[in-house]
């Protein structure tokens, strides 16, 4: 897993609420047996029409917007547990997703793939969306160690992340590394 610490990047706004993982990656693309290549089909049916032509009104097709941060409406990633949604975001090039609320399973999947989900208040979410809408080239600074997310001097947001997952992201560790290291505790539990 890739490490994350500091990031300085533009953002893509997607204000829609309750975006489910079927939209992030439709089920017909779940037939692959590797983790690679899902980025091409990220938000496939919002991004392309039935003839596979880009839909100009969709934000990822707007040349003004790019960057490693996706700012999305509340309850991002609800629905199916498919980790392919996180793989698609990573493969496309997103490293951070900001929302006022994340669905549980998606959040866990994101963290397990080196994506940092940042939860902000609804007020801050609206403020961030406004900044990006007014200025697509706005640069945001993210500092995971310090747990803050800033836009110039205008907006400084402190975010929460649990200590264990923070450690994993900063060092590029995953849960299996840890679980394998405590195998004797697991065996001891089994014999209780």
């Amino acid at each position, binding site marked *: 897993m890739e490490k994350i610490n500091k990031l300085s990047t533009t953002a893509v706004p997607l204000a829609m609420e309750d975006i489910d993982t079927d939209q992030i990656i439709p089920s017909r693309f779940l037939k692959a047996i590797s983790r690679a290549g899902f980025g091409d089909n990220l938000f496939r049916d919002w991004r392309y029409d039935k003839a596979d032509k880009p839909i100009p009104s969709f934000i990822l097709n707007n040349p003004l917007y790019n960057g490693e941060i996706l700012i999305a409406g509340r309850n991002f990633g*609800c629905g199916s547990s498919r980790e392919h949604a996180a793989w698609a975001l990573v493969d496309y090039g997103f490293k951070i997703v900001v929302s006022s609320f994340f669905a549980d399973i998606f959040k866990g999947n994101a963290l397990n793939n080196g994506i940092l989900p940042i939860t902000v208040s609804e007020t801050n979410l609206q403020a961030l969306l406004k900044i990006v809408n007014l200025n697509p080239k706005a640069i945001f600074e993210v500092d995971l160690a310090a747990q803050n997310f800033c836009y110039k001097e205008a907006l400084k947001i402190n975010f929460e992340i649990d200590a264990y997952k923070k450690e994993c992201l900063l060092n590029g560790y995953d849960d299996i590394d*840890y679980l394998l290291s405590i195998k004797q505790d697991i065996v001891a*539990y089994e014999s209780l």
Partner: protein
Amino acid sequence: MAKTMFDKVWDAHVVKEITGGKQVIYIDQHFIHEVTSPQAFDGLRKRGIEVFRKDKTVATADHNVPTINQHLPIKEELSRKQVDTLIKNCKDFDIELYGLGHKNQGIVHVIGPELGITQPGMTIVCGDSHTSTHGAFGNIAFGIGTSQVEQVLSTQCLILGKPKKMRIKVTGKVEKGVTAKDIILHIISKMTVGGCTGYFIEYAGEAITNLSMEGRMTVCNMSIEMGARGGMIAPDEKTIAHLKDKKNAPKGEAFEKATEKWLALTTDEAAKFDKEITFNASDIQPMITYGTNPGMGISINQTIPISTSDSQTKSLNYMAFKQGEKMEGKQIQHVFIGSCTNSRIEDLRLVANFVKGKQKAKHVKVMVVPGSKSVELTARAEGLDKIFEAAGFELRQAGCSACLGMNEDKIPAGEYCISTSNRNFEGRQGQGARTILASPLMAAAAAIEGKIVDVRAYLN
């Protein structure tokens, strides 16, 4: 200290406390299927490790399998490759596989309880969000991502934070024509699609305990549709009766002993929940969804609410419905009876009983997809296949089918499908397809009339 049922099961599975309030939780049973496991097995190969507890792992092929001619090779190349990969992985890692053609094959959440693998007090996971179904037996059962599938395969454990606890009570009795599906669609419509995120639910109250085990599974199945990781129901005599003589359930004296333990898995009188909500069964009517998430549901006699956000407007545009309209009377072109929500034998019996002697509307296509090979065989043995055939319904073979449209069972763009499944997301049943969620009874009535109707008008 007084404990909830959830606390009792959770606390018994803590292997170790770690930093940041996280805990290492032991998993008693792991189900795997072809779609969310290949990358996890690859991970094991890369690390050069074995599956840690093969006897706690069971695999089946369900998401991406055809529901006709299952004895023939799968036509679609990518699907075949994915199912073949599961077969190879199970062989290489020595895992029990109920693949296509096996008598135990079926939707993972249907076969677990059917075989008695699902037993009260367990922790159960699967790379599928509807794993919450197994909670009907008093389990902590929830869906996980593929990285977590790999964790469980390699260590039988997960690193988790303990969720908050919510109790949802449904008091009183439901009227005729109101099923388990209507109860849960009603609850979701009130709680909203994200309203239970961060919580694990205990369902209780007379309307819940009055449900059969199959009905309880329908309720727990859709817990995830309001964001809850899972939902559970305390084991009782119905749970015990369901488990007795099941293939994997304990037998004889061991069963008696287990029964004692299982029946003790109830919430203590003084135990506290983080949130408690009560619904009255008498307020629940046959439900129907009008939008593109399962929280967008109304009673059949209500009208589509006024949109209050761009997301809701987008949703109505997708469905080509207008605010203020009634759902009753709307034309449908497809009916799907199936999925881990409503594909068990009781669902098929209910539908068959309703359609006996009736004919589907001419313009409607009706698929009945059993949840397992065993459900299919039982349906045939009981003559339900003849009833379906006479009504113009097509009884197919077991799989997830048009619930998620990964196989060829898709709904064409722009057409409406009344579906007994669990999700009405955009494109869920096929690109551009429009899904309307309802109970098996409501779906059966719509099949006959060719439009959405209030099933109560057809019951004596």
